[in-house]
């Protein structure tokens, strides 16, 4: 019964479900892309400086502790309402996990590996492309996975500051106490978050070189034996 009502709600052109879907996906996609680019860029930029990396790592930790709703409220007077402040807020939310993973990924490469590569006569570009990127990419992908799921789950709040999307159904539904409307917003968000989680999990595994996976299999084989 509820499902039928939900289906009718979605199909009703008056509810503009398609437009809301596009708006939601747009907000999420733009934020994830921006957070990824900025997170990696900052992570790479600070890695050589102990002071900068200390600042970046601790600020990121702090950022993750602040609830996004508080952030949106605080930023409202400066950023106003609409698409742009939503993107800014979600991007800021998404940067820390990516930045932290980029930083720890680069720092985690055994110095002996880089020393050996330099000693063999690899130039900076070859070390970057053949050694550093393949070793760090799966760790960065894990960060993007965390960020993307957080962004998708949080983007509903964008409705509060007028960026549209599924959040509008939820906000209005709560206001008018309409279960069907709430579900029309909440269900797609849950599905999308799940989809992103699966997709990014697959991507992360695909980006992990076989040589880094072997230890796990060796260990689990040992455990079985």
């Amino acid at each position: 019964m509820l499902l039928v009502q939900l289906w009718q709600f979605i199909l009703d052109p008056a509810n503009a479900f398609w437009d809301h879907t596009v708006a939601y996906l747009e907000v999420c996609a733009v934020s994830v892309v921006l957070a990824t680019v900025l997170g990696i860029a900052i992570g790479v930029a600070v890695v050589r400086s102990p002071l900068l990396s200390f600042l970046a790592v601790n600020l990121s930790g702090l950022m993750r502790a602040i609830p996004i709703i508080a952030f949106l409220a605080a930023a409202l007077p400066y950023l106003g309402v609409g698409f742009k402040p939503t993107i800014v807020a979600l991007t800021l939310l998404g940067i820390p996990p990516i930045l932290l993973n980029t930083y720890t990924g680069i720092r985690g490469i055994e110095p002996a590996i880089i020393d050996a590569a330099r000693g063999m006569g690899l130039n900076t570009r070859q070390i970057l492309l053949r050694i550093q990127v393949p070793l760090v990419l799966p760790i960065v992908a894990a960060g993007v996975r965390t960020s993307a799921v957080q962004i998708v789950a949080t983007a509903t709040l964008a409705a509060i500051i007028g960026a549209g999307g599924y959040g509008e159904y939820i906000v209005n539904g709560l206001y008018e106490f309409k279960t069907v409307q709430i579900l029309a917003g909440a269900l797609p968000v849950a599905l999308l978050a799940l989809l992103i989680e699966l997709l990014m999990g697959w991507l992360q595994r695909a980006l992990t070189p076989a040589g880094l996976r072997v230890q796990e299999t060796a260990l689990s084989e040992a455990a079985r034996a």
Partner: protein
Amino acid sequence: MARIAFHEVSKYYRGASKPAVDHVSFEVAESSICMLLGTSGSGKTTLLRMVNRLIEPSSGTITIDGHSILEENPIQLRRRIGYVIQQVGLFPHMTIAENVRLTAEIAGWSKARMESRVDELLTLVGLDPAEYRRRYPRQLSGGQQQRVGLARALAADPAILLMDEPFGALDAITRVHLQEELQRIQREMRKTILFVTHDVEEAFRLGDQIAILSEGRLVQIGTPVDLLLKPANEFVSRLIGSDNIQRQLQYLPVSSAMLTGTEAAGRYENQPRCSSEATLLEALMSLIASGAHSLIVYDEQSQAPIGTITLSAINQAITTARHAEAEKTTASPTH
């Protein structure tokens, strides 16, 4: 073709009060192994890494076959010098074959040539290519990883090999195994090898020459026998254990203890013999095994009898160094 020469080489690290390497000059002959021996912090690694310009000297010059390495592009220089380190530093995301062929790949070798080179090198270092090509570094033991490290360093057939405590992290048995493998490989390949170690036994076993470093200075350089017979000072004799009877027996040649004069040789036709190039230990073993009072020493080249060796002569030779040592220590309080 690769003689390495250091001329007054020094390295001052920024902020350090003393130089890490202090006016060091010596030469490493082509196709020989020179061991850099010294305690931790004596500047061995710094000296080694200046040869492939991972560290730049503060002053002095290093030449290879007379050409200053400072005039060569560092990347090109490193590609013609093999580099092996204690932590190995294999690339964990690449298979063993990919690790070994990387330098050849960058040098633009054909695929077929690289593949046969990988098989050749893995066989050389004692790993069956069929079994190991497709494995990953993490699936190998420490000793096997260092074998791959050596194969990787040899990939582009460099004339020079730099090795920084390559076997330092291995257990005693594996270490001896790999030392023997290196000796076998060296007999085949004749590289010029600069080998850092803090293990005196390793220095004696592998070195054609041993350069002893202390606080960045070269204290003495010579063959193992030179160092045992004529340690430059007390530091050297302590470090190499000049009073270590086992080491003396193992490394000192029969010629260092031989009694010259061959009249005995004519008298005892059936007396056991030994080569002039045998070690004291070998002479001692055959004295015990034969029960003879003395052995006749034959010249290795001419096969002519040149002297005799007896138990008391061996005893005399290995105690001389210890007596000299004792005199030095009793004399020192007067300084």
